[in-house]
């Protein structure tokens, strides 16, 4: 090999080297999404909103609960209150940043819970098949007979107002959707040769599901779940907006939007701010999910 004329092959070899080097699937996806400008901007915006919500107490903000009757509904750009004050004279900037804590929690947690429950149900239904599949999937069909907003409101309305109830109702809304996706991708891989080989080599059903199937279906289910976060944020804040989520004086974007509705004739743009936060988070998650989907579609 050392006798090969280096001068002739070195250029080609150098160019070929990165292409032939086996790169893992997830490494490729990561590289593709880092090159996607829209996704990166969205990730930055979300990171900023997340981080500021987490470190809110150390940002030197005004007390988000402390109101004052003499400085109610100040305009955006007031000295000392860059985003104005709300109907009880509380600093809007502080309330919007603190509001992220609860709004993000009640918006994202239902999707995470439904991702866990739905993936497990779909995996079992798809892998075991037969009567168990019928039982799980027909039960899921019943929930599909309700428009998702109606289902969320029905459960939340019956259980009564509260953060926990709103998380439960949204989880119930998303479990059927994720289960359906998980079941369909699992059914797609369960008869593939490598699963057959694992079964022939004596692996038990749990090992096969965990090792051989989960790894192959998780990506698709994950992308689908990320696309639900946007809807979940809107619905969670919507439940609070209706008075079915948290209670005043807690800062939460949906509830703030509701209590500020009375102020739209006095100071409309301050009243609209909490909704702009929900919109920003929701559109960033949507775009990020789209970016992730096309980054994972390697054939493209």
């Amino acid at each position: 090999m050392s006798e090969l004329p280096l001068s002739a092959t070195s250029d080609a070899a150098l160019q070929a080297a990165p292409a032939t080097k086996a790169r893992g699937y997830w490494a490729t996806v990561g590289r593709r999404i880092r090159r996607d400008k829209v996704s990166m901007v969205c990730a930055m915006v979300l990171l900023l909103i997340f981080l500021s919500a987490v470190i809110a107490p150390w940002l030197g903000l005004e007390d988000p609960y402390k109101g004052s009757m003499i400085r109610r509904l100040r305009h955006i750009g007031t000295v000392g209150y860059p985003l104005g004050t709300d109907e009880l004279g509380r600093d809007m900037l502080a309330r919007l940043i603190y509001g992220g804590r609860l709004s993000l929690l009640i918006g994202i947690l239902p999707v995470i819970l439904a991702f866990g429950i739905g993936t497990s149900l779909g995996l079992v239904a798809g892998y075991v098949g037969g009567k168990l599949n019928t039982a799980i999937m027909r039960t899921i069909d019943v929930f599909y007979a309700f428009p998702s907003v109606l289902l969320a409101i029905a459960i939340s309305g019956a259980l009564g107002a509260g953060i926990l109830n709103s998380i439960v109702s949204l989880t119930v809304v998303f479990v059927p959707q994720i289960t359906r996706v998980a079941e369909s991708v699992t059914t797609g891989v369960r008869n593939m040769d490598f699963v057959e080989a694992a079964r022939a080599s004596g692996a038990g059903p749990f090992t096969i599901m965990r090792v051989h199937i989960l790894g192959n279906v998780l990506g698709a289910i994950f992308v689908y779940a990320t696309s639900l976060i946007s809807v979940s944020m809107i619905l969670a804040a919507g439940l609070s907006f209706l008075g079915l989520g948290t209670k005043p004086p807690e800062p939460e974007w949906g509830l703030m939007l509701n209590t500020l509705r009375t102020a739209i004739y006095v100071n409309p743009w301050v009243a609209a701010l909490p909704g702009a936060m929900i919109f920003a988070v929701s559109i960033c998650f949507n775009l990020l999910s789209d970016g992730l989907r096309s980054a994972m579609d390697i054939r493209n």
Partner: protein
Amino acid sequence: MLAYIARRIVYVIPIVISVALVCFLLVHITPGDPLVAVLPADASQELAAQLRTAYGFDRPLPVQFGLWLLRALHGDLGNSIATGRPVLAEVMRAVSNTVTLAIAAAIIGFTMGILLGLIAGYFRETWIDKLATSFAIAGVSVPHYWLGMVLVIIFSVQLNWLPAVGAGPNGSNSWAWDWAHLKYLVLPAITTSVIPMGIVTRTVRALTGDILSQDFVEALRAKGLHETGVFRHVIKNAAPTALAVMGLQLGYMLGGSILIETVFSWPGSGFLLNSAIFQRDLPLLQGTILVLALFFVFLNLLVDIAQAAIDPRIKRG
């Protein structure tokens, strides 16, 4: 075709019964006594027991469900605890207002969605496509109740062009097709239309792109067919899927109108649901949800049948 319709209807029966069961159980997952709204705080044990018997809450659950279902089949959904009036009448009156709103929104949203989707799919990867796609993503990401507020701020508070709340002059609750009433419909209808607009745009764009990249389109162009002729083929092929998506969206607009109706005080089913929740009027809550869910189930059935009628491949599947 008739056999297909019969088969679809048979499939729907177990769904309808399960939906009724879910609606029935909703009342029983509520914490506390379902009688709490009618019972005075200082009611005696005897009065409570009497009322419990009168409403049938003392019987075993399966019996209660059977009796409730039987009455529901005869159109008797009980009486509202708050007003004492029959639930079905209250719900149907409210639903008619929601239907008005949903149809107006569907006309706006579907027309915009189809147009934007066709244009975006036809001029794929150009700036026109990017513009239409961003519009669609904004439409599906916007919290619609907030958009409603923003529209009220612009068109009612700032410009004073359109009314902010209600469904007619002087708090009128009965709808009429004249300008005095239509003024009240504009903002809620636009607000309701953004989500279907976004979803229909995305669907039609994807369908158009897929169809245009197929071989038969190449063949049509090769044989010299004019672009408008090609376009007709695109529309024909996209119609069944687009129709299914639009049917589903119409169902979501009918069933998920609560947030927008609350923002605009629109006297529809969502508004009714809202007051039922906060007055703990459980028969009304149960009845409204049942009626809306049944609407949704039957709308889906209609869409399935319509889809099979225009696409003969579906019947065989």
